């Protein structure tokens, strides 16, 4: 019960943040130089055409009016119309968002799956060779640009070794007919995972390194906790202490870092999608910007914000699930 109420409370809390995101996005989009009408119709359009377009996109009205219209539009699920694609913004986003989420979520799964064992081993063998290796790996990981990792992976594993494809990312649930060389759904999934491997590593390395660092320091602290001493004094085997008693407490700061890392990862998705030519949200926003597609710029920026806010709420709820002190009030 406590957990459910907490989740709802966090959702309610996020409403002003979302309105804030819309405001910032609107303000920025409004500052963009250039005339969208000119972009659509060319240098010297007919007057009636201009007026028609202005009326259609509401460009003839003052900014605050358009802001309110946009705000109420978003509230009712209307993110406006993409000039470049000539389709509703929401439709474009729903087409691209799954790709970015697929990539980002996989990158985090890769990061967590490698970082947690690495961090725990590091903490358990503090200042021993395994610890030094893990610390160097994570130091290099936080210092390497993700897009460069992508380039290197492509050169080595796509061009030289030919193990993985260099571009594109089909979704595992796409119809076999849409994927070249795939006849069954299983083959689609295999193709999808095959394409996923490199971008996932490129995007996930930074997260992996960051989580390893936090996991290590958090585990080191937790292993020195009084409750660990108590468990040892009652004959609990060391392996159980590491896996259960110390581990669970140590995950609290790790969850926080994962939540904050979402911001980096979603931004990094723009770069990764560029490197691997993946048609996701990142490419969408770049296309929107390059074509001065205002409503698409606002829509994609807003959606990135929504993705981050939702991600943070999920991690907060996960935190509350592990730490009873959050959901059950006090302390």
């Amino acid at each position, binding site marked *: 019960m406590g957990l459910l109420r907490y989740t709802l409370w966090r959702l309610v809390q996020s409403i002003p943040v979302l309105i*804030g995101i819309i405001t910032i996005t609107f303000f920025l989009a409004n500052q963009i130089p250039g005339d969208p009408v000119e972009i659509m119709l060319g240098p010297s359009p007919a007057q009636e055409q201009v007026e028609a377009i202005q009326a259609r996109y509401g460009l003839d009205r003052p900014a605050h009016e358009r802001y309110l219209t946009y705000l109420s539009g978003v509230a009712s699920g209307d993110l406006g119309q993409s000039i470049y694609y000539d389709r509703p913004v929401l439709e474009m986003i729903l087409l691209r968002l799954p790709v970015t989420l697929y990539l980002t979520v996989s990158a985090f799964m890769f990061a967590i799956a490698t970082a947690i064992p690495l961090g725990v081993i590091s903490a358990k063998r503090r200042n021993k060779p395994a610890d030094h290796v893990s610390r160097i790996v994570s130091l290099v990981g936080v210092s390497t640009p993700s897009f460069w990792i992508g380039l290197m992976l492509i050169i080595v594993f796509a061009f030289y070794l030919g193990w993985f494809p260099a571009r594109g990312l089909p979704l595992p649930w796409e119809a076999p007919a849409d994927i070249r060389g795939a006849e069954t759904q299983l083959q689609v999934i295999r193709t999808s995972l095959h394409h996923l491997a490199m971008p996932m590593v490129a995007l996930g390395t930074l997260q992996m390194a960051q989580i390893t660092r936090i996991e290590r320091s958090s585990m080191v602290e937790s292993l020195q906790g009084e409750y660990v001493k108590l468990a040892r004094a009652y004959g609990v085997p060391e392996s159980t202490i590491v896996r259960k008693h110390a581990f669970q407490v140590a995950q609290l700061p790790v969850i926080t870092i994962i939540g904050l890392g979402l911001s980096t990862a979603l931004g990094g998705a723009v770069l990764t999608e*560029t490197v691997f030519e993946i048609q996701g949200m990142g490419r969408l926003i770049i296309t929107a910007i390059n074509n001065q597609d205002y409503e698409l710029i606002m829509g994609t920026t807003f959606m990135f*914000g929504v993705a981050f806010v939702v991600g943070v709420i999920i991690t907060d709820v996960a935190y509350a699930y592990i730490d009873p002190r959050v959901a059950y009030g006090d302390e």
Partner: protein
Amino acid sequence: MATGSESQTDDLSTRDEESGAGEIEARVGLRYTLKQVKRDTTARIGIYTVGFVTLVALLAAIDYYLFDYAVAEAVWYSPVRDPDQVNRLLPPVGMENQFGAGAIEHPMGTDHRGRDVFVRLFYGTRIAITVGFMATGIGLIGGTLIGSVSGYYGGWIDDLLQRVTETVYAIPFLVLVIAFMTAFGRDLTFAMIGVGITSIPVFNRLIRSRVVSIREEDYIEAARAAGVKDRNIIFRHVIPNSFAPVLVQATLQIGVSILIVAGLSFLGFGAQPPTPSWGQMLSASRNYMLPAPTFSLFPGIAILITVIGFNILGDGLQDALDPRINN
């Protein structure tokens, strides 16, 4: 509880108390920091790396601002103008690709327009370092102002400022900077400002939490009772007290800023051609990954070394300045 550790911490705390206010001042000051850094091996490696990269950047900056690349051009190759010979995309010396064999005068090969990669990397250092320091500076100043005002006054000012920074933080920062640059300008200046703004929440949170805890201290109460102006209390007492953690965070943030700006340049936001910048070199190299893979290699290594330097220094500073956290 082990007596060993008990006596160690006791030792530290008594040293603190006995030495009095002067020593406490010294413990947070610059000279104390340098002394601690000298004793910590990791911090020393970090400071050498950062020092080296900064020196290179300084030399490049002198040549750029005072002589418009004349010095480099005189002794070597121009980083911006296309050379006369058209042997494009040479590999590093000792290697061969479809454009020919690497030449001794191009130790790291040439780029797609025949310009020397090594010289361009040299000039790229200037941009990376400038961007790192400027963006972090903007974030630091903005975050300190907002965080200290917010934490010191509390109430509705605090609520308002925190909600605003929270909202800024809620948009993934690369996306926010891209949107910001689209609105105001695509060049390097706006990249720095944009990255600086997105790092404000980091410093804001750090400073605010310290201010909130320091606000209640006796000596602040005393200063306030004695009629010292709020502004003076913040600048004389509260901010100096946060020196150590802010220094650590700022060092790490420089590395992060360099990474973000490199990413922006890679996407075409930031330094515009023909200005030599690492991110933009990597962007250009994308079209030549198959015929000239080393073209993509060196700018990345330059970024890696620079950022690692700041990260090692940041970690080292943390160890050196906070004796309780011993790795």
